[in-house]
């Protein structure tokens, strides 16, 4: 199995994710999802307690 030649533009700063122009925005999104997940888990516990 021969490796394909490396793409010179492959390690640039673009995220390739629609709606996210920078990695900082992606990390902010991950952090926001984490906070929402914890809040939802807390609400889940409260609802079924």
């Amino acid at each position, binding site marked *: 199995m021969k490796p394909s030649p490396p793409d010179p533009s492959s390690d640039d700063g673009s995220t390739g994710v629609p709606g996210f122009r920078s990695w900082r925005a*992606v990390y902010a999104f*991950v952090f926001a999802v984490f906070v929402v997940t*914890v809040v939802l*888990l807390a609400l889940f*516990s409260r609802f079924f307690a």
Partner: protein
Amino acid sequence: MNHLDWIVLLVTMVGIAAYGAWHTRHTDHLDTYLKGSRTTGWGTIGISVMATQASAITFLSIPGQGFESGIGFVQNYFGLPLALIIVCAVFLPIYRKLGVYTAYEFLGQRFDGKTRLLGAGLFLLQRGLAAGVTIYAPAIILATVLGWRLDLTIIGTGLLVIVYTVTGGSAAVSLTQKWQMGVIFGGMVTAFVILLMRLPDGLGFGGAAHVAGALGKLQAVDVSLDPEKRYTLWTGLFGGLFLSLSYFGTDQSQVQRYIGGASLREGRLGLVFNALLKIPMQFFILLLGALVFVFYQFQPAPVFYNRVEWSRYAAGPNGASFRAIEEKHAALHSVKQEKIRTWLDVRARGDNAAEPAARAEMVAANAATDAVRNEAKAALTAANPLAKTKDSDYVFIGFILAQLPHGVIGLLIAVMIAAALGSKAGELNALGTTTTIDLWRQLRPLAAPDEARNVRAAKRFTALWGVVAIAFALFAGFSENLIEAINIIGSLFYGVVLGIFLVAFFLRNVGGSAVFWAAIAAQALVVVLYLSLSISYLWYNLIGCAACMLFSLLLQVCLKTPSKMPST
């Protein structure tokens, strides 16, 4: 297991291994062998990272954890998304920029040879010790409940993983992990759906969740500051952050999964995939365990779930006392079932006045059955102090064998084996790579340009580690305490290794000698503290890391040697 189960099990497991080995049989380029295909996308990287972390014990023990203690264990993963953000932003770009094969190669470029050797040595020591456990721990459970021979289970799974990992290296590991995770997700969702269908008529998911919640199984977030509590929001955030940062950022078995790939973007997205999905996945597995708990509230439930261990002593000279405990548990279990049904009726009627009393009676009945379960464990210990009293690992596999239809049983056993193979493959791949790149090539620098010779060496070292793992699993004679001890030893090293890497990234004026001796001193401090204090071992991740960074700064001031920083 019947013939259908065996067909499902063998076709999925041997088929995936054979496909992986066949598809990557011509992997003769060192870069592909050690880092995987240059065309690997974020989905494969993300699944590979997930599969390497999720061992068979994840799918055997975590539902048992949900059954026994509830879903609070999910908090252990709260530091993981934050750690992965740091790995994406700091660790990964530097690894890719420098084009290293291992995380410890970076230490050699940033510091010196001895620091690289120290990092690689600590990894090989703790991961090599754990290598036998990764095979042994699921094998002992599967062999016990399925009546398989333990030695053949260990040798069979061990040889299967060696064949495709040695043949195709990192490319084969990622490829097979993708299919193995497909089997795992398919099997777990199937088990969840069947479990919901087996609940009593009219109860449904909502009713089952209310029962589990009322009996204390659904407290996912605990903001208590009580240091006695093992799982809280705070231990998860702080302990979990350092543990995950060390595991994902510096453990070669994980670094190797995302260091290759088509681009930096694919690696980052693979890690983001895990940051988003890991907590929901663990929640789902724990919830499955909590629902199995509810299922057994409406069925005759054993007093002790490791039936083989229980039967061994129940057939002995103290059999009468064991049968008395069983009868007592069965009677109290019936009472509890009645109390649960009463509480559900009160809730359905909307009788808010009667609800607190009905709930209190149900909780008291549950405490009574728990007390008898503890009595059963005490009876086992009295019969033999070395008896295995932890039965929660046997809850989910017992449910699978007793309640699921044939075919699905084979699929769920395949889930356990797939998880064992996936994590083992990542581990062997990393051990072989680190031995080749950080040890063998250092001793034979003239061999470095000979690519074919490097690949041959990597294959031999991977096979060697596989054989060591099998031999360790066969002959070490693990006890439950030894398995836990090996996991603790791993945690004792993680903090210091993370400290070395954080010094490399953030304390740019610190040189190799300072960090090397600081790491030795920090490791000694961690060992001394471990032997003299009785705090949770998770805290040693933080202590080891902080001590290594602090000692590095102090020693650098004393040594005043210039540091070597690669241009990143």
